[in-house]
């Protein structure tokens, strides 16, 4: 051990950053930990922002994660994001000009919503990632208002369901042929579309938005086929972009997030790990091909591993080289329906209905040429456990 305790900086105050800090402490790291976040909040749960919290009104304090007593001495710095880094020199530069030195670095900077370059007024355009986004959007969701949702993935569909529940007229515009087709396939996508249509959502599939119309504020949306949809508010839910610009110029592989090994360690001359949505990591359950997985439990799983690895590196030891095998999991609420997923249905090449029907409670299996890769249930949460076990044993 060094006589002077090492220090760790965590870039990103979300779930991944929190779990890594807790894991560092659990692994015996006793040095200073500083977490830098650009939002003015302690780590909080984002999934409710498109669901119950959007519906009921966002109280960010109620969404905060419980923090273990071991991280009570962590220094949280909010409001000034990291804008650049010199990793070999072990220094970070914040937007306000402050420089931060570190011995070990945790990259937990996450993702942000993708914005499309569409002409027209800015006012009335929303994305949904932060509590701030959700609070702003919530002001527009009221009976008689019209919401146009761009993108038919999970966030788009959840917002559509929430907006309908709040009495809005809702249009969903997406290039895909069915909602949620990439993660769930066409058959279940169709079944879920019909549920939305039953609740009064209008889909405009195979379409793109050409222009936003209005004066200072959006009043309508023009589609590529000439259709004009009335719009009090537009929600852009068309995928995400990794927050890696601050890492440029250091020679890291930033092709799609930050490439790490099975210990979440970045291949670099100083101790650096990456976790959560921004980490492209191998998973031995799925052929060890490095992938980013934006699923609920991955910040926790990658954070636990990364903390142990970084603590070892800071002791001058080799981190555990054992495989990383975590079962990805996420869920979605749309109306009274619960969709639950295990594994990686999004990488499958085929899907098969194994219980129920796509229009009712059901379970689908997802496979690629290596076999079963994912399982999704709709309103069948309690029956999924044996399928998840099958996936673990694949």
């Amino acid at each position, binding site marked *: 051990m060094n006589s002077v305790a090492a220090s760790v900086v965590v870039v990103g105050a979300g779930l991944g950053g929190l779990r890594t800090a807790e894991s560092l402490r659990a692994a015996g790291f006793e040095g200073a930990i500083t977490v830098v976040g650009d939002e003015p909040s302690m780590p909080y*749960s984002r999934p409710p922002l498109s669901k119950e919290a959007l519906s009921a009104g966002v109280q960010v304090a109620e*969404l905060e*994660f419980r923090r273990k007593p071991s991280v009570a001495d962590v220094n949280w710095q909010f409001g000034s994001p990291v804008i650049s880094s010199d990793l070999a020199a072990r220094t970070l530069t914040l937007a306000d000009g402050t420089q931060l030195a570190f011995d070990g670095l945790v990259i937990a900077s996450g993702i942000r919503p993708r914005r499309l370059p569409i002409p027209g007024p800015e006012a009335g355009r929303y994305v949904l990632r932060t509590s701030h986004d959700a609070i702003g959007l919530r002001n527009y969701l009221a009976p008689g208002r019209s919401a146009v949702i761009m993108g038919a993935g999970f966030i788009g569909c959840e917002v559509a369901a929430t907006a309908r529940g709040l009495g809005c007229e809702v249009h969903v515009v997406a290039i895909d042929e069915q909602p949620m087709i990439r993660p769930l396939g066409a058959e279940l996508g169709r079944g879920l579309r019909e549920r939305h249509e039953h609740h009064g959502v209008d889909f405009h599939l195979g379409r793109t938005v050409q222009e936003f119309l209005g004066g200072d504020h959006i009043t309508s949306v023009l589609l590529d086929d000439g259709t004009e949809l009335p719009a009090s508010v537009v929600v852009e839910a068309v995928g995400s972009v990794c927050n890696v610009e601050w890492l440029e110029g250091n020679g890291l592989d930033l092709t799609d997030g930050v490439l790490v090994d099975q210990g979440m360690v970045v291949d670099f001359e100083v101790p650096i790990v990456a976790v959560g949505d921004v980490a492209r990591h191998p998973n031995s359950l799925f052929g060890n091909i490095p992938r980013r997985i934006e699923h*609920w*439990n991955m910040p926790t799983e990658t954070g636990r591993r990364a903390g142990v690895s970084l603590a070892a590196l800071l002791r001058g030891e080799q981190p555990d080289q054992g495989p990383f095998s975590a079962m990805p*999991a996420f869920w979605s609420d749309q109306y009274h329906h619960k969709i639950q997923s295990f594994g990686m249905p999004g990488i499958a090449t085929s899907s098969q209905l194994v219980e129920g029907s796509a229009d009712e409670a059901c379970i689908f299996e997802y496979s690629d040429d290596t076999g079963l890769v994912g399982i999704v249930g709709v309103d069948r*949460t*309690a029956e999924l*456990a044996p399928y998840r076990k099958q996936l673990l044993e694949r």
Partner: protein
Amino acid sequence: MVTITVDMDKCQHYGQCCFEADDVFALNDDGQLEYVKEVDGSRRADVESAADVCPMQAITVE
């Protein structure tokens, strides 16, 4: 002993906790969460993991 409390007003019965400690948390045939309120101290790590992964942060471990 470790005491477990689940805030059933928050719990949405997602069952994530069941996979961290399946002898403590389970969904019954109606999909409702059932759990053991007190476990041996040796189970603390698993029960804390279950609390960590709860999407609604409904589980308290003391």
